[in-house]
Structures are given as structure tokens and as C-alpha cells.
């Protein structure tokens, strides 16, 4: 900010006459300053603070803290709840990502191939993306209710029996994953639709003249390869977003039954704001950030290497 101020004041003009190169440099700093400051303030500082906190025993709200080195991380390794939470998160991601990507693609292809009601289908599938998940989670809670829920009524009518979706340790995480897919599907569909739209019509026509006119050969010759960049983007976005699963857990299961739906962000929240062990919570956050960072790096690397054709 000070640099920007200097470059803008009348005094700066005097400098300008003496050393134009320096003034130019000052102006450059002045121009990048706002973005840099925002970036530092919003992203870098909190991250650094979190990393620093993860090496302390700070209690939320406490006036003092002690440096404990890597003790928090050591404790994580031995922590049953944390290990459960990490495997649950990975399981959740491995269920939600493939399902939401494949279904998103299928729905996008169907919408693109169909003629009528396109706008309606687009809106219907996109609705969960825009809706507040807390509110939607309540709706799901009613739908999944063991005795009066709509889903059990259907299962019962189909002869599949009633299930206690959110209270059965074997079913709770898959149920949350299904809600996650329902919520993510719309975004993936929109991204795939945009990808489909950007495929030049000429390519499809060339393919049909060249003999690729069945839907499968058309899909393998043109559509799928041309969707490469979209698919990569969708995969990474879905992974990052499903890593962030929190609201459904907080509203529907609170990590239960018996830690069956304990996930990283929920554990972090509990440690930091439930048990006020902010240092320990910060260490979990660092683990979480590492995964997200790895995914982002993967995306950058792949995007550079292969998936772009232009």
C-alpha cells in the first residue's frame, strides 16, 4: 500500500524525471500490491498460521501457548479416531468421485442427445448444487427416516426391507456418499455439458462421413477424447469437493454411529471447537491441506502434459 501511495503522489513525479526505470518498477509494485496483499491476507497468512499452530499446544481462547514440536503429529499417528477419520474420508472420496463423474457424464450426454426439455433437466440436476446443503440435509433426514421416510417406504414396497440408513454403521457412510453424489452430480453435468458444447460440430460430421456413426464409435472417436480436459477438471474438482465433506456429517450423523462417518473436517472441527484443542485441530487441517495441494499439483502437471490439444 505504501508503494502504491508513493507512486501516486506528486513527489513521485520528481523521482520519475531522475530515474524512469525506478519509477516504472515502483509503479509495477504498486499495481501488483493490492492483489498480493489480498493473497497474503486471505490465503498465505492463515495457512502459515495454521501450520505454526499445529506445532503448539494452543487451546482455543487461551492466552498463552507452548511450542511442542511435532508432538501433535505424533499423537495423530496413534489416534484411533484420526485414523478412522482419514480412512473414512478416503472411502467417501472413492465412492463419490467415480459415481458423480460417470453419472455426470451420462446425464450430460443424455441431455445433449435429447431434444425437448433440455432446460428443465439441466435445472433439475443443477438444483442441489445451488441449494444450501444444511437445508437439503434436513430434507434427506426426513426422507431417510427409518419408519416414515419415503426411501424406506419404497424399499419396503419393493420387498427390500427397511433399513436404518443413518444409524447402521455399515450403511451410514455409503448413504452419505449417495447424498454427496446427488449433490455433486449437477456441477459435473454442467461442466461436461460445457465440454460437449465446445466440441466443433465439424468433427462429429467428419466422423460420421468417415464411418464412425454408431454412438459407441462416435463416442470413442470424437466425444470422449475431446472431453479430456473437461474430464480432468471434473475429476479434480470432485475429489477436492468430496474431501471437504462436512455439512451432511454435521447435520445427519455427527460422525456416528460409532465413528462410522467420522471424516477429516468433522474431526478437525470437533478437536478445535468442540474440545478446544486448536493445535491438534490445526495438525489435522495441515493433513487435509496436503491432500488438496497434492490433487491441485496433479491437475497442473497433467494439464500441462497431455490433455490439451490446441
Amino acid at each position, binding site marked *: 500500500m505504501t508503494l502504491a501511495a508513493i507512486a501516486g503522489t506528486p513527489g513521485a513525479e520528481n523521482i520519475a524525471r531522475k530515474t524512469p526505470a525506478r519509477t516504472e518498477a515502483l509503479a509495477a509494485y504498486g499495481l501488483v500490491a493490492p492483489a498480493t496483499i489480498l493473497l497474503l491476507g486471505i490465503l498465505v497468512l492463515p495457512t502459515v498460521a495454521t501450520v505454526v499452530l499445529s506445532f503448539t499446544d494452543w487451546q482455543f481462547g487461551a492466552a498463552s501457548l507452548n511450542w511442542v514440536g511435532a508432538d501433535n503429529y505424533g499423537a495423530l499417528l496413534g489416534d484411533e479416531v484420526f485414523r478412522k477419520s482419514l480412512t473414512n474420508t478416503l472411502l467417501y472420496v472413492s465412492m463419490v468421485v467415480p459415481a458423480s463423474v460417470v453419472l455426470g457424464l451420462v446425464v450430460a450426454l443424455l441431455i445433449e442427445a435429447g431434444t425437448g426439455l433440455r432446460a428443465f433437466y439441466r435445472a433439475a440436476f443443477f438444483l442441489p448444487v445451488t441449494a444450501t446443503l444444511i437445508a437439503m440435509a434436513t430434507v434427506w433426514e426426513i426422507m431417510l427416516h427409518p419408519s416414515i421416510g419415503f426411501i424406506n417406504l419404497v424399499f419396503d414396497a419393493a420387498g427390500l426391507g427397511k433399513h436404518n440408513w443413518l444409524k447402521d454403521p455399515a450403511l451410514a457412510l455409503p448413504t452419505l456418499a449417495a447424498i454427496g453424489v446427488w449433490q455433486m452430480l449437477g456441477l459435473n453435468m454442467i461442466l461436461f455439458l460445457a465440454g460437449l458444447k465446445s466440441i466443433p460440430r465439424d468433427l462429429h460430421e467428419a466422423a*460420421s462421413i468417415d464411418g464412425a456413426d454408431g454412438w459407441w464409435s462416435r463416442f470413442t472417436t470424437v466425444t470422449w*477424447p475431446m472431453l479430456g480436459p473437461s474430464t480432468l477438471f471434473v475429476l479434480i474438482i470432485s475429489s477436492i469437493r468430496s474431501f471437504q465433506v462436512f455439512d451432511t456429517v454435521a447435520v445427519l450423523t455427527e460422525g456416528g454411529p460409532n465413528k462410522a462417518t467420522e471424516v477429516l473436517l468433522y474431526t478437525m472441527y470437533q478437536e478445535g471447537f468442540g474440545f478446544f484443542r486448536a493445535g491438534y485441530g490445526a495438525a489435522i487441517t495441515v493433513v487435509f491441506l496436503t491432500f488438496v495441494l497434492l490433487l491441485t499439483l496433479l491437475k497442473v502437471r497433467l494439464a500441462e502434459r497431455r490433455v490439451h490439444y*490446441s
Partner: protein
Amino acid sequence: MSGVTLRSINKTFGATSVLSDVSLDVGEVEFLTLLGPSGCGKSTLLRIVAGLETHDSGEVSIGGRPVDHLRPRERDVAMVFQSYALYPHMTVAQNIAVPLTMRRLRPWQRLPLVGAVVRSVRERRAEIDADVRRAADALEIEPLLDRKPSQLSGGQRQRVALARAMVRQPRAFLMDEPLSNLDAALRVQARAEIADLHRRLRTTFVYVTHDQSEAMTMSDRIAVMMGGRLLQVASPGTIYDSPADLRVAVFIGSPRINTLDGIAREGGMVEAGGIAFPLNSGLLAGASLTVAFRAEHADIAPASDANGEGLPGEIRQVENLGADVFVHVACRGSAQPVIVRVTPDGGYGLARGQPVRVRPILARILLFAPDGRRIEARP
């Protein structure tokens, strides 16, 4: 047997009629060019032949066989798109191979690794490779076979598109402005190459362009289209010298053909630009018509010429192009200056503002009725 036959093709997009009653016969080994201004329906017509667009009524046959109900692949045509439409994720060799793999291999045989396991598939793949090489060789793009389209220049992409079209020996080649993305020098070269390709392959070529020099230099016949109708289908020479319609006469040729408003007079005369020409239009005296002649079918005489022949006018501009000099003369009866081509020697001493007479060659004057139809003039 014929190449491509169109019978009374009609096409509308919504309420706008794009093609009206188009009938056309393209010979088995003919190079036919569809020529017309932008938006006249050339691409639409070509896409109807390819099966990429459906026509509202009429009949398309290829090689003597009606194809209206057939899908593009079954019509056995190849198409070169203006954008070339190369598959960006495939190498040049893979691009050229697509029409062959799609036809010679079943879907399961196209899966990766099947070729390594199944002997018959391996053999068929080897045949395809050989054919791809042959096509690449014919177009001199063998060194490029392993590159991706994004690593090629415009001219190279165009050759790859041609190779992909010819690799399979289709019954007809359809080309939609394949040269319009090339620079001027390359376009002239590619023009010669496509004409040469046609001579070697001896099949039907239907070529779309709005560039008359392409049409004039490459085609056996030109079909001039305007507003969704065919105005004339004839050899380049006939189109130029004997246009059937005023719009054709005006569209073809540079500089533009000179046109004057005229009136039929008694005794086999036509009056235009203030003088009478001994041309028998066969029209009733007093009927209006258009008198037209090309820049090279007239000469310039001094205004003081004793026998007073020719259209009186005043020089507006002398355009010296080296080999030719175009003299623009403002004449009565013509909104635009009449343009006359003279040799550099003949142009010597001509200057702006000078009064002159323009003397068209009587035998080369063309007459057109008010509706644009050509009137055969008998001198």
C-alpha cells in the same frame, strides 16, 4: 453411370427458403464447382449430398443409386471441410487411418491390444498402414505422419485432410472451401494440386467456393448459384463469355462487366449511352434492356473522331497494372464508370478529365432483359 445427380432439391430453414428447385448432374469423372456469393446455399447443398443435412423434397443419387434414405457413411463420399476437421488428439497417420479402420475393423477389433493378440486383425492393421502410407506419399506428407494436427501449418493440415479423404477411394469428393484458410500464394499452389489430384483419381469432385478464380482455373464446369437457385451450369469459358443471366455476368470477371441502360429501337437497333447500336434484340420498340460488355471487348478512341462512333464520355481514372491499363470512363446511361482495358501503349497519353469515346466490339455485346435473362442479339 453418373457421379452425383440432384433432382429438384428444396430446403428451408424455418421460414427461410435456402434452396429452391436445384437440379444438377455431375459427371462420373467431372470436377464441378458450386460458385456463388456468401450465403447463397452452396454449403447447404453440399451437406445435403453428403447426408449431413436433410432436404425437404427432391432426390439425391450418387453413382446412379438414390441415397436419400442413406446415412453419410453409406453414401460412400469423402468430404474436406473448410476447417479441415482433423481429430486433434490423433496423429496425422491415425487421422488418415480413421476412414479405413471404421470400415475394415469391427468395433471390438478396434480396441487397443486386440491387434497384438488376434492375427487377422494384425494383418488388417498392416494393410491399413500401407494404405495410409500410400495416401501420405501421394500428398508428400510422409514426414509428418507422427505429428499431431496442432503441430502442422495450415497448408500441411489441408493436405492431411485431402489424404484422409482420398485414402479410401470414395465414389465422390465433396470439398467446402478447402483453400479459404490458406494465404494467397499457397492457395494458388494448392489449387494446382487439387486439380492434379482430380486428374489422377478420375472420380467426381464437387467443389464449393466463392472465389471465382478458383472456380475458373480448376473446374470442368461451374454451377453458379445465387439466392438458393442455380443460374447457370456450364464450362468456365461459357460462363465468362456467354453468361445466361445478368447476375452471372456481373458476378464473374474482374473488373466487373460494364452495364448500360438501353432501349430497343425500331429496325433492329438498340440505343444506349446516347448512341444506337445495330443489334436486333427481337424486343418491341421501346422495351428497356441492359447492354453489357467486358473491359477487354472495347477500345478507346479520341473524342474528336470524325465518324463519331462509340459512347462519348470523360476519363475518370487511368489504372496502370503494368501488363494492362484499365481506363475508367464516365458515360451516359451507366451509373458506374465504364471500364476499358487497353495495352500500356494504348494507354499512353490518356489522362483524367480527357473526353473520349468508348467503342465496344459489336459482336461481344451482351443484351439482358429487365428480369436478368439473356437476350440473344443478332447484329
